[in-house]
């Protein structure tokens, strides 16, 4: 994946999160396009690029937050490190495996970020309530991510099938010669 691809996807993810997430709200729950984009991109880049991307995305995410800065840089960096290795295992080799990793990854990233912010603010909300709310957001985010992965997998499969079809012109040429 080229650098300008990453820059464009970064910009689109953050614009979508700040301006469009409310349009996708269902039952008071909005997806987190930043976390979704991050989890989908990490397996597709090298380890070094994944960590750099995590630091930049964490920095941008902290900049758009109205609470403590630096938390998402730490969360995203750790998540990139762990997820990159998990995706190299058996689960990460298939589309289904990657989809199954999305929900727990999103849940852990969102949970750690929220709990850290609550602890640092000094006014901790009930843990059970926080976990429940975060699980809803993580589930919605993972569902959006799964849909995206399936669309990408379907698109690549279609392009592979098309390239396997024989070229009709070559066949006609072979028959006439």
């Amino acid at each position, binding site marked *: 994946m080229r650098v300008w691809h990453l820059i464009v996807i970064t*910009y*689109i993810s*953050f*614009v*979508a*999160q*700040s*301006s*469009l*997430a*409310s*349009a996708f709200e269902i039952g008071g729950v909005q997806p*987190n396009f*930043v976390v979704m984009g991050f989890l989908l991109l990490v*397996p*597709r*880049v*090298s*380890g*070094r*690029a*994944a*960590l*750099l991307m*995590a*630091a930049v995305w*964490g*920095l*941008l*995410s*902290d*900049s*758009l*937050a*109205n*609470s*403590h*800065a*630096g*938390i*998402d*840089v*730490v969360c995203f*960096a*750790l998540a*990139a*490190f762990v997820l*990159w*290795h998990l*995706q*190299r295992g058996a689960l990460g080799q298939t589309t289904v495996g990657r989809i199954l990793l999305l929900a727990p990854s999103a849940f852990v990233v969102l949970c750690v*970020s*929220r709990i850290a*912010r*609550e602890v640092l*603010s000094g006014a901790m*909300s009930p843990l059970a*309530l*926080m976990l429940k*709310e975060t699980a809803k957001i993580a589930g919605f985010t993972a569902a959006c991510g799964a849909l995206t992965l399936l669309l990408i997998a379907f698109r690549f499969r279609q392009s592979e099938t098309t390239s396997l079809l024989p070229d009709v012109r070559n066949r006609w040429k072979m028959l006439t010669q």
Partner: protein
Amino acid sequence: MPAPTTSPPLWLLTASLLTGIGLACAPDEVKTTLRTTVRDLLRPGQMAVTGGREWTSNHYESFRIRWLAAEPPSGLGTDDKIRDERLRQLQAENVWLREQLRHSKSVAGAIRSTEPLLVPDVVEARVLGTETVQRLRRAARSILGSGGRDGIEGAALVLAGKSSQIDVGEDSQLHVDHLILAGCTVAGKVGEVGRYTSTLLPITDKQYRGLARLARSAGSGLEFGAEGILEGDGGDGCRLNFIQSTEPVSVGDSLYTSVTDGSLSVPLLYGTVVAAELPPGAPHWSIQVKPAADLSKLRRVQIVRTQPNPLRLNAH
């Protein structure tokens, strides 16, 4: 194409973690500069998205009515809202006129009252989106499409956009600026200001503070009562504090900005009292206020900024 296999180096992970910790310990000015810079960079994309949503929403409605033979939306709700707004506007103008009359009577002879040095002005801004990360049960703050380049300053009042055009009569003796502001509802204040964007601190935010006066409708217009401090409760409402227990308060009373707070000489509406309790022996009322502005549906706002009075400048 197979995924890259170079594993993430530990030194880079350590550097990232140290960067995050360093950012957490950085001074507030650094964090504020970083936040405003990022918001300014995202502004073009956000303007495109919000513009597209507005265009789609406007054209979808006309498409539905024209091609799907759908019923036009009932004007009852809209008419009521316009009537309420007009009533508030007239009440606020009434207050301003009575103040002017009282002031002119108190000045003896032919002495003309001096024009104020600063007068309010409004800048219309689009709501571009919200901040991305919020704590549990804390509303995300909105991002506005105007910033320091438009003369916006921190703590400036932000008003909810009007649903109707102001009808300015040709024989009106009132200043245009007061007509623009009269009857408006307060959505909050400007929080952080960048070059091209700023954030909205809604009146329901725990950090919001403002002077406010109770008011109720009487035969001659608005009757103002006690003055207190309005603060957000962090949820969907606000609290009005420091109203003495000897003051009359009742559910249904309106809450307006104090005209002694800043350069505004017309009161602006905060909301309505929905609960008022006086615990036995307590020195102050416990008052809950419901905001008049629907903060969840804000698309456009008006930001009040002060500018030098042209009449004072031309006089020299």
